[in-house]
């Protein structure tokens, strides 16, 4: 459907623009301001130019080393959870019951983890994984696996990953389910007449139809895992050592822990820039996918 060109539409958008600009642009200017200065407390600031940015991007300094290490950890984390959650989410969506009261039940239970405050998610897994009082930790240790997420790096990683899978796979599953629901029955009937195998139905009908929602799912999951803070902070506190210190945790440590405003601000800007670039790439792919589909539709 063609949209009419009407610049008066700006009046309708204005409240949103002002509200978000107030919450986004003013704080961002503060960050830019801090990132170019150094402070020794007492609200005295000194011009520091691009010094913080140079330090940030140089792995041999303390700040640069910490930034790159946490960035790297975060990228691995995002890759791992995407590799687990997307296929698992598709499988769960395909396993949804077809009709009846079980559909509502499954939907409600699936959505449940999404509505739990993030620190409570952390608390749940902190308790659940403890060897002394948690079911998971207790059972694992009972069957002879030495599991302790507080002291062992690998166990800490496993806990954080399983927690994220627990927390967010439902989102992918619900998105895929919404995509599957939009496939008309005629497609399946046609496939049946053609004698298509189960796998062929999946690759030729279901996957292409889920293409769009999957893109949204990957975008949301990548972004949210890239800025994950609360859950690992509650469970592991970024440890043992620095092994689960992701970028946001590192940032809050520098900003609110050490009150190193300049360093934190420079880190924030680079962090934001990475997110902006990824977001733009996805947005372009999404709008292109939408534009390709439009003529086919009508």
């Amino acid at each position: 459907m063609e949209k009419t060109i009407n610049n008066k539409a700006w009046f309708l958008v204005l409240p949103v623009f002002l509200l978000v600009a107030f919450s986004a642009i003013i704080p961002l200017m503060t960050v830019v301001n801090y990132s170019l200065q150094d402070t020794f407390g007492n609200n005295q600031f000194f011009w520091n130019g691009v010094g913080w940015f140079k330090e940030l991007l140089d792995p041999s300094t303390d700040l640069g080393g910490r930034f790159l290490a946490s960035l790297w950890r975060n990228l691995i984390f995002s890759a791992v959870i995407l590799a687990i959650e997307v296929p698992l989410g598709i499988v769960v969506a395909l396993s949804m019951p077809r009709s009846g009261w079980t559909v509502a039940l499954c939907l409600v239970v699936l959505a449940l983890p999404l509505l739990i405050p993030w620190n409570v998610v952390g608390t749940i897994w902190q308790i659940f994984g403890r060897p002394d009082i948690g079911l998971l930790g207790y059972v694992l240790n009972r069957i002879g696996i030495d599991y302790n997420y507080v002291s062992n790096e690998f166990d800490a990683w496993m806990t954080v990953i399983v927690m994220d899978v627990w927390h967010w796979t439902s989102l992918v599953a619900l998105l895929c389910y919404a995509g599957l629901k939009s496939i008309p029955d005629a497609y399946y009937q046609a496939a049946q007449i053609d004698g298509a195998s189960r796998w062929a139905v999946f690759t030729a009908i279901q996957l292409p139809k889920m293409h769009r929602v999957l893109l949204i799912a990957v975008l949301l999951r990548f972004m949210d895992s890239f800025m994950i803070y609360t859950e690992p902070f509650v469970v592991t506190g970024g440890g043992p050592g620095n092994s689960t210190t992701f970028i946001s945790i590192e940032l809050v440590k520098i900003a609110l822990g050490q009150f190193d405003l300049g360093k934190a601000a420079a880190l924030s800007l680079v962090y934001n820039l990475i997110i902006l670039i990824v977001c733009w790439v996805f947005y372009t792919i999404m709008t292109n996918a939408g534009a390709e589909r439009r003529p086919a539709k009508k």
Partner: protein
Amino acid sequence: MHSIPGRRIIMTVFLVFLLLPIYWLVNMSFKTNTEIVSTMTLWPHQPTAANYMRIFTDESWYSGYINSLKYVIINTVISIAVALPAAYAFARYRFLGDKHLFFWLLSNRMAPAAVYALPFFNLYSAIGLFDTPWAVALAHCIFNVPLAVWILEGFVSSVPREIDETAFLDGYSFPRFFIKILVPLIASGIGVAAFFCFMFSWVELLLARTLTATEAKPISAIMTRTVSAAGMDWGLLAAAGVLTIIPGALVIWFVRNYIARGFALGRV
């Protein structure tokens, strides 16, 4: 046809995986601390409601829930109110810079809260809103408004344009058309958007904790602080956790029929 072999088993296993940690939390909330620490029991052998009683009678605990609900509701109302006209504009018109504006909005949904924690603290202290529900509600707008616009735009697009035109021919003014015709037509979409605003505002902790001190402290912040100060009171912690799950569970129950569509952001 659109399901796979063994789907019942897969679904059951997955649902059990989702429910087990929650069950464990509920289980612990009904135990005494002695029972939690000394024995490993699959259900409470000496069930007690003392943990819940303490939360309901101690104001420093239950005020946290009220504070949280306050900013969540303010945020949801603001987000929907400003997002509706904008969604209509994006769905119906092309205007100068529309695509860039949409992308900019979307990019704010993706901005990490950790980046904004400190500047927000400065900003809201400067304008005297620090430690009020308004500060948190406005701060949460940064990710909820773009999301609401995104969802509602999809729903408005699915309303045929002819309806607008007929209404204007019938002499409806724009505000009247908006309230009398468009809003009822996309009521389910508004419900879905409100659900998402509620959800993301309810689960967020970092900004909510940074922007409040004593008066407006949300429950999630009270949980982290009180518990560590009093030593580990596991039963109380678990009970507080269970109580934070309940509002979400209630909201899900009401919107369960729209969840799937809402998760595809109104675009399927």
